[in-house]
């Protein structure tokens, strides 16, 4: 008893908690380290792949954008922001921005409402509903290349399907050069985009509509609300999260549009259907101005990112929790 008197005080001050507690803390730390290592081990393959083939190339594009560089060897001719100033004086690139905006607006005011109307229609109990769903969604599974070539032939001047049909019904005047005329190329392109992508949005809306509880619309019906009122005041607000996601995807898709343009017009005639990605491809892989092309990449990414962050911050924020919790019920 007496022998423990002094040493006991010292252990209290210098060695921290009494021996059993130290052991516990140490084993807890060890367990936590082990836990971290296990978790990290599971993450490692994904991280290596993602870092190496997604993040690293992105960062390199950011670096290369500050050089005059043809793509051979390492970039060495540093020119600061010159690529960027050149970009914003380049008529083709400014045109890309304008065309991107046009596509975004057209998608939002024509494509999405159309998709919504079809979704509401197909949500009713009707004959052949499943067939229509399959049919409308099918274009989404076809590759952009195949879709583009198909429509390139349909809209070929004179012997294309579109012109011939118009000719047969005596509307020759309406037909025309379609993809080949600067004044109609964007409208034609938008038509093809709508064919290809509206089924996708329609499917999203259908999934959202399934989640609208029937009792709510029935209750509104009993309260004497007409079809339009029921849609406007009950269905639409409940569909809002889905709508916001679909708007998001639609805008991001328009910013990054490449394949469909590349196989139909490759940006022509005379740059009138060029998108940012097409311009980037032209400079990077055809004209070997890789530094300049990288600057286009960077601007494209910046636009996507700013839009995505702003959208997430102001529009999507409250949806995400709700969406993930409802999804837990759906995903089986």
């Amino acid at each position, binding site marked *: 008893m007496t022998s423990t008197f002094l040493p006991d005080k010292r252990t209290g001050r210098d060695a921290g908690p009494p021996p059993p507690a130290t052991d516990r803390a140490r084993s807890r730390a060890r367990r936590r380290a082990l*836990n*971290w290592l296990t*978790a990290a081990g*599971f*993450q490692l393959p*994904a*991280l290596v*792949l*993602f870092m190496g*083939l*997604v993040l690293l*190339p*992105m960062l390199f*594009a950011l670096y*290369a954008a500050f050089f005059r560089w043809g*793509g051979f060897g390492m970039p060495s001719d540093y020119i600061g922001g010159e690529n960027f100033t050149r970009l914003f004086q380049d008529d083709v690139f400014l045109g890309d921005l304008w065309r991107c905006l046009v596509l975004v607006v057209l998608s939002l005011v024509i494509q999405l409402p159309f998709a919504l109307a079809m979704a509401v229609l197909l949500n009713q109990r009707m004959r052949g509903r499943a067939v229509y769903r*399959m049919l*409308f*969604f*099918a*274009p989404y*599974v*076809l*590759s*952009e*290349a*195949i879709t583009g*070539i*198909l429509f*390139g*032939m349909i809209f070929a001047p004179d*012997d294309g*399907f579109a012109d*011939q049909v118009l000719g*047969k019904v005596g509307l020759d005047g309406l037909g025309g050069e379609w993809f080949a005329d600067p004044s109609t190329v964007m409208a034609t392109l938008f038509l093809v985009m709508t*064919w290809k992508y509206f089924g*996708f949005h329609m499917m*999203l809306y259908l*999934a959202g509509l399934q989640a609208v509880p029937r009792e709510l619309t029935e209750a509104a019906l009993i309260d004497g609300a007409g079809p339009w009122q029921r849609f406007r005041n009950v269905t639409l607000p409940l569909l809002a*999260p*889905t709508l916001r*996601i679909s708007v998001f995807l639609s805008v991001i898709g328009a910013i*990054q549009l*490449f394949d469909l343009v*590349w*196989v139909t017009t490759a940006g022509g005639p005379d740059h009138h259907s060029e998108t*940012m990605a097409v311009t*980037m*491809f032209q400079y*990077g892989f055809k004209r070997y101005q890789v530094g300049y092309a990288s600057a286009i990449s960077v601007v494209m*990414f910046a636009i*996507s990112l700013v839009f*995505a962050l702003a959208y997430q911050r102001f529009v999507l924020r409250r*949806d*995400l929790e709700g*969406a*993930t919790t409802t*999804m*837990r019920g759906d*995903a089986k």
Partner: protein
Amino acid sequence: MAVPLLYAALSGFKSTDELSRNPVGLPESWVTSNYTQILGSGDFWRLIGNSTLIAVGTTVLVVAVSALSAFSFARFAFRGREVLFTLFTMGLMFPFAVAALPLFLLLRSLGLLDNPLGVILPQAAFGLPMTIIILRGFFRQIPGELEEAATLDGCSSFGFFWRVLLPMARPALGTVSVLAVVTSWNNFFLPLLVFTDAQWWTLPIGVQQFQGQYSAQYAKVFAYLVLAMVPALAFYSVAERQLVGGLTAGATKG
């Protein structure tokens, strides 16, 4: 909606001559040679084979790697988890076109041009964000008691993942696999960059080349387009549920 597809299918049975006289109606006499010629050539089947190889490779890789990562996100509380997850979700916004140039240079220096791995690896890497997000959501629903029980029975983390979680997650794995197959099958940009040698071309590239080569013979090109659509549409009709389920799940989760 179906008009362009029907038109193409019918046109494939016409001769190019007839196509200009009679664009809309049924073929006067059903010419099958357009279709049979293509089916009889080895080129077409090689394209299908390449597309299949690349789609399967990409799918196996992206699903395996994502499952490990999603498991760790769903089941472990570790330092840096949220940062890492945010990094992956941001990947959803990275346009492929942005990385295309440096990626091309990287693949060139690794000697992966004209090599199927040059398409498989980047496709898998860009598929990670969506796959991880969907799988993580699914793994989180599996009750923690199961893991405790497995641990008590002497199961390691990986043992639990391999023997309990993956078999249970089969529907979710099916969904992400179908998504990965479709995305890979339709990819145009990356194979266009990576494959200069016709031996490795995938279906979308082959179609584009064929159209360039026979641009005057409309009926032939239509037949080719239709045959190129068949695998995708067939796959879609079989896997429709998984595909639609996956797209809506991924989309509503942002």
